[in-house]
């Protein structure tokens, strides 16, 4: 590759983010990855960093030990290298600067990634998710909703998909008129149909109402949505923006629906902040939790000041509002924000997840993302900074959605088929540009890029490894008994998602994981069941009849006394058996810890817990006795007495 100025630098030190520990190794630069291989160690750890994952690279001023290079990744990894020679450091730095900001799509990893699959397998991967089938599952088309071909050629709205569902009574002129009255032509279309009450969730962008403009076609459009629902005479219009923002938009000829012009609408602001606020909020959060020797006070104050959890709660609140309107009142709802591809996507998808158990399965969640995010044109390329673009367009909107889902999985540990590892993996690949699914800003663009012809689908990749992402406590019947989730939105039920934002900071994680343990046991149970069946079959051949395996009833059936227990679904799981820890005992200075998590592409590091890594305090070093060799490396500042 012409951009790589140096492909290998030796004697590079990797500093730990939160302690003074460091390891030495060799840095390799390839066309796709930056790789650090630890030298002279039995467990030679390797860190693989995909260029696309690098958010920023910084070269700090030269120190006596070398030239520091700090790399921040979009998957929240932070690495701090010290390169012995400044020249080498500069070469790596300038190579990376070029590599991490590709100028054209064809430079993205997805177009060169080859997982040793033949074309048939690749094509099958793209056929896994079928949105037409999904709308059919919801019961659409039906007597009130139909598929329209107005956008067959992306003529009406280039950021929408080709296939759109609208009320039967919405004629083409109405659609065309309405689309002209909406930002970017994003007129109201169906995204979810709540069959039980024939209530629809529709989405759009803001109307171009300014201070007084009106559009009869748009008004008709909303009326058509309303008429399609026999339950209620009104529909809700949820503007997900804070009222102030919507008002400001009016001055620019945009704005929100005037209740006087639209008959039978109930208009509601829900106050979710814009992409710029969200971007700086997560930045603040990252700064706070990246601080060394962070005190509880600074942590909590920082958490509050970042506003991150407040924003997450606002989105969940909005989704609950939507869900209640649809499932309790049976009313149809139109959701929009400004352009209708950020907050609207968050609220519609989260609302659907609350209403429909299907979206809480692995496959269903993929469908949900495919529908509300990919097909409806969430601007992944801009938001995730896939190409060298406008930094003001970058925003963690999708990350925020994944976090909202995680918050729900914490409240409903049995409702989701997947574990947080699934969410983290999706997050990983939204930024990796390794698969074609999230490339570009719209379906149209993806077609132009020929992603289905030239790249692989993430969904196939995730489904092939789905046993890693299963939630062992998932109860399939939960969806029948609790079709609609009603989460608590008291602030104390929102938590900091440590396993996302500190996914690479191993010392911060629980050292043993309930999730991993339960997953292993469940797998083991399946094996044992088949062994038992084989044995029984053999015995039967020998003429011995055995009692059939009893499948025990889930404890769901027995009434439980109300008693609080909190379940800790903690760290990522690993293949390493728990028994291994007993063996660790033999190794001097080993601690009880987890090992390399699977489900990653091998680009995770192993970091065990140790007394000093955790920085419990200042131990005066000169204490008569020689420190153990293991302690030699560790900083033990002398504290005068």
């Amino acid at each position: 590759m012409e951009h790589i100025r140096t492909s290998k630098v030796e004697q590079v030190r990797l500093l730990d983010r939160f302690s003074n520990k460091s390891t030495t190794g060799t840095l390799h630069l390839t066309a796709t990855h930056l790789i650090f291989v630890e030298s002279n160690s039995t467990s030679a750890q390797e860190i693989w960093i995909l260029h696309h994952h690098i958010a920023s690279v910084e070269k700090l001023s030269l120190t006596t030990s070398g030239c520091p290079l700090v790399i921040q990744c979009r998957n929240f990894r932070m690495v701090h290298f010290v390169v012995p020679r400044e020249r080498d450091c500069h070469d790596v730095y300038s190579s990376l600067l070029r590599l991490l900001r590709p100028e054209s799509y064809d430079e993205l990893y997805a177009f060169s990634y080859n997982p040793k699959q033949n074309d048939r397998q690749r094509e099958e991967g793209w056929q896994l998710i079928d949105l037409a089938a999904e709308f059919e599952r919801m019961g659409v088309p039906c007597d009130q909703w139909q598929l329209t071909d107005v956008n067959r050629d992306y003529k009406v709205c280039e950021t929408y998909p080709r296939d759109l569902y609208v009320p039967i009574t919405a004629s083409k002129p109405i659609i065309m008129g309405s689309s002209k009255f909406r930002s970017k032509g994003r007129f109201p279309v169906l995204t979810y149909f709540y069959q039980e009450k024939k209530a629809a969730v529709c989405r759009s962008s803001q109307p171009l109402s300014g201070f007084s403009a009106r559009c009869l076609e748009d008004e008709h459009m909303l009326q058509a949505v309303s008429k399609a629902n026999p339950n209620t005479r009104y529909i809700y219009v949820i503007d997900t923006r804070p009222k102030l923002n919507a008002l400001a938009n009016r001055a620019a000829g945009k704005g929100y629906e005037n209740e006087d012009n639209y008959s039978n609408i109930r208009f509601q602001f829900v106050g979710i902040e814009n992409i710029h606020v969200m971007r700086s909020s997560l930045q603040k959060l990252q700064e706070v939790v990246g601080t060394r020797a962070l005190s509880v006070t600074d942590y909590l104050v920082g958490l509050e000041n970042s506003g991150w959890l407040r924003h997450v709660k606002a989105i969940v609140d909005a989704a609950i509002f939507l869900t209640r309107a649809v499932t309790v009142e049976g009313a149809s709802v139109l959701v929009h924000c400004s352009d209708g591809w950020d907050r609207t996507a968050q609220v519609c998808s989260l609302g659907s997840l609350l209403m429909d158990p299907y979206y809480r399965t692995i496959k269903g969640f993929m469908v949900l993302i495919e529908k509300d995010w990919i097909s409806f044109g969430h601007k992944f390329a801009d938001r995730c900074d896939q190409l060298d673009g406008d930094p003001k367009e970058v925003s963690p909107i999708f990350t925020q959605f994944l976090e909202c889902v995680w918050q729900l999985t914490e409240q409903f540990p049995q409702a989701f088929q997947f574990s947080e590892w699934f969410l983290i993996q999706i997050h990983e690949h939204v930024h990796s540009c390794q698969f074609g699914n999230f490339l570009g800003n719209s379906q149209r663009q993806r077609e132009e890029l020929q992603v289905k012809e030239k790249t692989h689908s993430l969904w196939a990749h995730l489904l092939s490894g789905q046993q890693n992402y299963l939630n062992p406590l998932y109860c399939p019947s939960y969806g029948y008994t609790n079709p609609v989730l009603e989460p608590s939105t008291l602030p104390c039920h929102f938590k900091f998602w440590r396993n996302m934002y500190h996914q690479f900071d191993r010392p911060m994680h629980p050292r043993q994981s309930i999730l991993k343990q339960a997953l292993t046991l469940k797998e083991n149970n399946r094996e044992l069941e088949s062994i038992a069946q084989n044995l029984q079959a053999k015995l039967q051949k020998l003429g011995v009849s055995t009692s059939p395996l009893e499948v025990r009833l889930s404890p769901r059936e027995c009434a439980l006394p109300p008693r609080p227990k909190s379940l800790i679904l903690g760290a990522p799981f690993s293949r390493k058996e728990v028994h291994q820890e007993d063996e660790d005992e033999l190794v001097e200075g080993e601690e009880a810890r987890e090992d390399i998590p699977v489900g990653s592409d091998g680009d995770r590091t192993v970091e065990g817990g140790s007394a000093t890594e955790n920085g419990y305090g200042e131990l005066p070093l000169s204490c008569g006795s020689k420190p153990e060799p293991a302690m030699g490396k560790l900083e033990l500042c002398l504290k005068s007495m």
Partner: protein
Amino acid sequence: MEFAELIKTPRVDGVVLHRPFLPLVEGTLCLTGHHLILSSRQDNTEELWLLHADIDFIEKRFVGSSGTIIVKCKDLRIIQLDIPGMEECLNIASSIEALSTLDSVSLMYPFFYRPMFEVIEDGWNLFLPEESFKDLESMTDEWRLSEVNRDFSICPSYPPLVVVPKDTDDDTLLKVASFRHGGRFPVLSYYHKKNGMVMMRAGQPLIGPNGRRCKEDEKLINATLRAGKRGYIIDTRATAVAQQAKARGGGFEQEANYPQWRRIHKTIERYSVLQDSLIKLVEACNDQSHSMDRWLSKLEASNWLSHIKEILTTACLAAQCIDREGATVLVHGTEGTDSTLQVTSLAQILLDPSCRTIRGFQALVEREWLQAGHPFQHRCAQSAYSSGKLHGEAPIFLLFLDCTWQILRQFPCSFEFNENFLVLLFEHAYATQFGTFLGNSAAERATLKLPQKTVSLWSWVNRPQEMEGFVNPLYEPNSLVIWPSVAPQSLQLWEGVFLRWNRSSKCLDEAYEEMVHIIEYNKELQKKVNSLRRQLAQLETEGSPLHTP
């Protein structure tokens, strides 16, 4: 019976009970000497039995001719009773107030409680110092059991038997006792089998403004050092606080006199600060406001998690000195009955796998809290809803349990007990039918004749049918020292205690049951497979395959 005088209205009909996340119950309210009972007198509805001792605070409200009593319990639950009739309501309220604040220990419920179960194993005899000394003897001969405090005259807060260095005679102990706060001379707290290092605890040395010195004290603790090695003194107070203590007759070990020791000061807060922290935390948790900022700032302002972090860090430091540095450690604060015990007991949980078993944890509580003289009665007299003047109330023990929970969260497979067990200890430390947590010291317990007159909590807990609910299904013995993370991102609010009554636990309960189910099913399958294998092997060795048509 004196109780009768305090009960002005023993019975009211038509009382409505409101409890969080449970349906209303209408029924008859009865007051007995020790309980508040509400029964709907229908077969299938629940009754409420509340110990008066569990009531922390009550509020009265009146609307028209009926009144409402809001009962705030020490286990942090809040219930509401709607009582028809102003006078009845007033009578009930004043009776509850009187009965929940009885002064005399001997009027407490444990003295009246008769177990409905057969005591198989008397908890009062389970953890005798003689017995645990036998274990120590099998590992080392450098320590002896001293009876110097047999009549509690040397140190009123110590038990009759204490473990001290072998070469230190009782006369020396007498002199050292006079040099240590409350007579708490250094005693053995923990022996680390792996490397023979020890942890001791004591009261602060009484250096005073003039720099008093006690050669016997120096000699005693030096006797625990290995040749050429130095030890660590962990003072749980900030340097400035320890300095101030000198003016009041206390202080800390001067390096000139203790050259073989390195002193480290940590900042674990004392009781009034901690009590205040608990009150603020619970207030924040009960706040129904939907503002995220308000919640986070209240959580921060309570400082509870800061205290957790500080205590855990100090315990980890002590464990690090012992296990990694191979050094002897002496821990003390001021009295040596509060923060000192938090540190020594938590360090043992990290270092000693046996403390992570159910029995081992009971032994730890018995040894490092009850025998070691933590004043439970004073500290747990009031909980988070207390108001007005406090008399040494502080959630010292609750903080210890919370820290244990934090470690349990990080090592969910290394503990034999589950969260319920910790919650149980919290409840019983504050209000109980058992005698275990009554009194402030071994001396007081002896005077009250608790072993003869009351039932031990352990007698009840250790029955197989009770134990079942406290066993962690994920437990696999882990013989290693465990090092938890103390980063703020790794610490969490203990929802099982602080949000227990503010959330519906149904989903979490069911998930937990599912977890248990997976594990039990695994055991069953394993058994089944083994028996099938045996059956098959047997048939094959018999070599006579039976072919049935």
